């Protein structure tokens, strides 16, 4: 999942960047509204965290512009003000949730996960596919009731599949949503990870949850074939 952070306070921006990367997100950081709007409209963003009090283009402007261009990813507002007037205004512009400063990182991460889940159409944090249960909040994966050990990157690929079940996902799309600008992924890496995921999710080869569609990408089956 690729998260855009638009925040002008350097320390907070860097802190959010580190925390989100630790959670397994690909992160784009922007210090001002103009950059933020560019990323929000030109990059395959899955969620944006936008500070309301930005220099130049305000956070409200970004939200409005993003929605005007019909980009539908969830937007989380960061604001120092907590009155309802501001909240209502931000939500009416097209924001999905807000967090008031100062905040706890766990709180923010919980909201981020909830928004991503919601935008994929899941009400509860736990998503089940046949014998597989993925908890998008705690990031615990159960296979037949047993905890499945996954590396951070394996989990990220699985999470993306879980949020886009029964959809064709190209290798390019996976690359864009799982790596940020800094990384230069070797296309081989995705194939290797998918191979490892297949072995872990389906050791007997009976379920085959990840289909390969030649020349198009992969498809995660929500129901066993």
């Amino acid at each position: 999942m690729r998260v855009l952070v638009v925040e002008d306070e350097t320390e907070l921006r860097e802190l959010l960047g580190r925390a989100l990367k630790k959670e397994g997100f690909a992160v784009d950081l922007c210090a001002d509204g103009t950059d933020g709007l560019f990323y929000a409209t030109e990059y395959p963003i899955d969620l944006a965290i936008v500070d309301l009090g930005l220099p130049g283009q305000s956070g409200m402007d970004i939200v409005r512009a993003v929605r005007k261009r019909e980009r539908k990813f969830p937007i989380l507002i960061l604001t120092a003000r907590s009155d309802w007037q501001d909240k209502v205004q931000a939500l009416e512009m097209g924001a999905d949730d807000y967090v008031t400063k100062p905040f706890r990182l766990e709180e923010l991460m919980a909201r981020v996960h909830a928004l991503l889940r919601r935008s994929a159409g899941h009400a509860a944090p736990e998503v089940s596919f046949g014998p597989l249960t993925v908890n998008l909040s705690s990031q615990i994966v159960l296979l037949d009731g047993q905890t499945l050990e996954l590396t951070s990157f394996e989990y990220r690929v699985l999470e993306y599949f879980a949020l886009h079940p029964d959809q064709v996902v190209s290798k390019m799309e996976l690359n864009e949503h799982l790596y940020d600008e800094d990384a230069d992924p070797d296309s081989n890496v995705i194939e290797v990870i998918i191979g490892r995921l297949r072995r872990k999710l389906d050791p007997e080869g009976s379920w085959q949850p990840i289909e390969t569609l030649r020349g198009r990408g992969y498809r995660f089956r929500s129901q066993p074939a």
Partner: protein
Amino acid sequence: MVLALSLIALAVDRGFTGAAENALKERLESVVFLILSTIDLDENGVPVVAETLAEPRLVQPGSGLHAGAMTPTGEWTSLSLVGVFRPPRARLVERGSTLFRGPEIDGTWYVYAIGLGWEQPDGEIVDLTIWAAEDPDRFQATIAGFRKDLWRWLGLAAMLVILAQVAIMAMLLKPLRKVAFDVAEIEAGRRDALSGSYPRELQPLTVNLNALLATERDNARHYRQALADLAHALKTPVAVIRARLDSDQPPTTKELGEALDDMDHLIRRQLERAARSTRRTLNQPIAVIPLVRRLADSLMRLYADRNLDVSISGEEGVSVRVDARDLMELCGNLMDNAAKYGNGRMHVFVEYGEPGSREPGVLITIADNGPGIPPERFGDLLQRGVRDDERREGQGLGLAISQQLVEAYGGRLELHRSDLGGAALRISLPPR
């Protein structure tokens, strides 16, 4: 006004010139008839006029008034024409017709002429033209004299009117100048409020101004107080951390986090208190239902995964005079609680407090289908977050803030049973 006076002057001038020309024509006509009464033709058809005419100017050389008579065979002119440089050029006028023309045609003279047929003793009829002419300089001099008078009087009238206007304006503006002066005095700190007598028309202005000043002073005092409170409240935790950092027992991360939470809580509480205690004097009436609807839409977005069902009923036009931000805060807190602690359903009902009265005040009831609030705990909940020992915000802080907002407007917050099964909170706000 200058324009009006100029138009008047122009009209009068036109009228006078016309009348003067008519008078001139009549005078010349009478001269012509005077000549006619004494004229005779000799046997050769040459006009003969007695030299003792009733008009003395005709016999006075250079008088400017001239007359003459002519026939195809001869001509008579008055004595006054002697020595005139460019005498009026006479010509025969058709029998039975008259002619009058001004200097703009002839070049020099106003001329009146009449054409006649004169019957000689032998029965022959001779064409005879009798004319009279007047020097236009005299006429222009008359007009110029009149114009001078006209403008002098009009100018005087204009000056009087302007003076009268200035005097009236000064009289009318005097009370306003007094208000302006008094306001300046207040600005300079020499006075607290507008006092003294003002005309009845200005009373509403001065009363409102005084109310505004009082609120302004109140607000300033509250802000100062809030700032002082905040600074004071923050000093203690800061001092403790500072001291611990310098000691041999530095604070743990957990302790630092707790101290930070405390400080954040302090800041929020003081901010809310400051916002609550500043009142605006002149509030526009605000329609309640549209505002509630906006909040409901926002809450449905915030609690998207709960399938929140909010129903709003009541009279669409119900409005109340409070600050929009306050009303939104008030309803927002209570509706947020209903969304958080309810079981997915909420009903907001808006009505007038005393239907029929001119400014009835409003009742806003927010009901949910949650577990409800036991009446014996309601008082405690209202106190939550207000007491200093309260550390975490949570259920009830919104209630406490709402309670204080309602009280600031002289209203009440009551707990009722909801027909949805949960709590129903009723806000009643007085007219003003």
